[in-house]
């Protein structure tokens, strides 16, 4: 794929919905996709049926439909975030080992996950902040990280203290090595390819400003 780096200097930083919409637009038509718990779930709101994207949920379902409301709520039909969902025509159910075989075996085209940190090499940290007091809980994140053909991540680019979450080396416990191919943030989107990090778009700030705040070499598409 080839891009031109675009700076949207007058745009506001993206909110969560705008980020989800951007991710949804980038997911190839007719692909098999897993959306992680939390923010990535929102991506499904922007996947129109014509796109033919088929959603996998780790708890044993391919062909997941929108969130269930009212009488459609069935506590035997939930997604990975334990939210009641619906089934679409062509849905299939399977047990957990088969579900993760599907994931680990490289059959999913894209997964979208939240991130605490992503390194310039595509290392992902999104399951633990490593605090002594934190209870470790990984779920399916490590399986998704190694299994999906493409791993897209969503996060705000800067932590509350202003530090960049796109880093030279992750300081938080790793989820997977060299697995991330795209990073969607509120102020920029990045593509990781050829062992380098490219800026694809910026929102509200220039590439130069990004470079001043992100400790990773940022290339641009010409």
């Amino acid at each position, binding site marked *: 794929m080839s891009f031109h780096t675009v700076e949207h200097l007058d745009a506001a930083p993206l909110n969560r919905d705008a980020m989800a919409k951007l991710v949804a637009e980038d997911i190839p038509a007719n692909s098999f996709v897993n959306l992680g718990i939390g923010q990535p779930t929102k991506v499904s709101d922007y996947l129109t049926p014509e796109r033919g994207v088929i959603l996998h*949920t780790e708890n044993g379902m391919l062909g997941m439909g929108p969130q269930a409301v009212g009488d459609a709520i069935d506590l035997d039909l*939930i997604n990975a975030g334990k939210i009641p969902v619906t089934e679409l025509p062509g849905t299939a159910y399977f*047990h957990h*080992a088969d579900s993760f075989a599907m994931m*680990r075996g490289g059959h999913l085209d894209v997964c979208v996950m939240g991130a605490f940190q992503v390194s310039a090499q595509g290392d992902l940290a999104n399951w633990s902040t490593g605090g002594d007091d934190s209870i*470790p809980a*990984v779920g399916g994140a490590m399986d998704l*990280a*190694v299994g999906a053909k493409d791993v897209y991540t969503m996060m705000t680019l800067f932590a509350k203290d202003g530090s960049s979450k796109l880093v030279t080396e992750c300081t938080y416990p790793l989820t997977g*090595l060299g697995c991330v191919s795209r990073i969607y943030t509120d102020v920029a989107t990045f593509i990781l390819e050829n062992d380098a990090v490219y800026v694809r778009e910026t929102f509200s700030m220039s590439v130069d400003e990004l470079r001043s705040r992100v400790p990773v070499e940022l290339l641009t598409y010409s």
Partner: protein
Amino acid sequence: MLKIAQSADAAVSAITEGSTVLIGGFGTAGQPIELIDALRRHGAGNLTVVNNNAGNGDVGLAALLGAGLVSRIICSFPRQVDSYIFDDLYRSGKIELEVVPQGTLAERIRAGGAGIAGFYTRTSAGTPLAIGKESRMFDGKEYVLELPIRGDFALVKAHISDGMGNLVYRKTARNFGPIMAAAANASIVQVSEIVDTGALDPEIIVTPCIYVDTVVQVDADATHGKAKA
């Protein structure tokens, strides 16, 4: 040969102190609440429990933990918004926790039932969860050696059983049930309906009867997955 128990309490009565118990369910979907409640009343302690989570709210698995009967839990995602019973036990050092990536957990249970003594997966390679585990390169990538998980008992929630113990499940409540039933020395299954043998189409059976030891029918309303509130 299938035992059909007359109550959940009767179904779990053989579980002994110190057993490893595989408990189905992903959150509350597929969680065999009635069997877990019976196990709590039964009172066998020092259990090792294998489940994807570590209980929600103060019912089912959470209540079993709360009763102090579980000394060790193997799961992928203990920390949830309503896992406060586990959280307290963990922080006060009253329960041992082994966190396993969810797919590795499922595959280790499958291996336990399938006679596989170990397998290599890329999952967790290079992460803190691989520390202390053997790893090995295949085709230039690092894989971690994972070992099977078996249970003395499995507690599973299915939808329908026939008279021999052939099972079908319902939607995403299927999750860990089939692999746990296969990986336990004795599988105890709660269903909402028991039908005549031969009433289930042989093409659609998910768990063949060879993996099922005891079945108990519980109140259908409680197991059909509809919201109760």
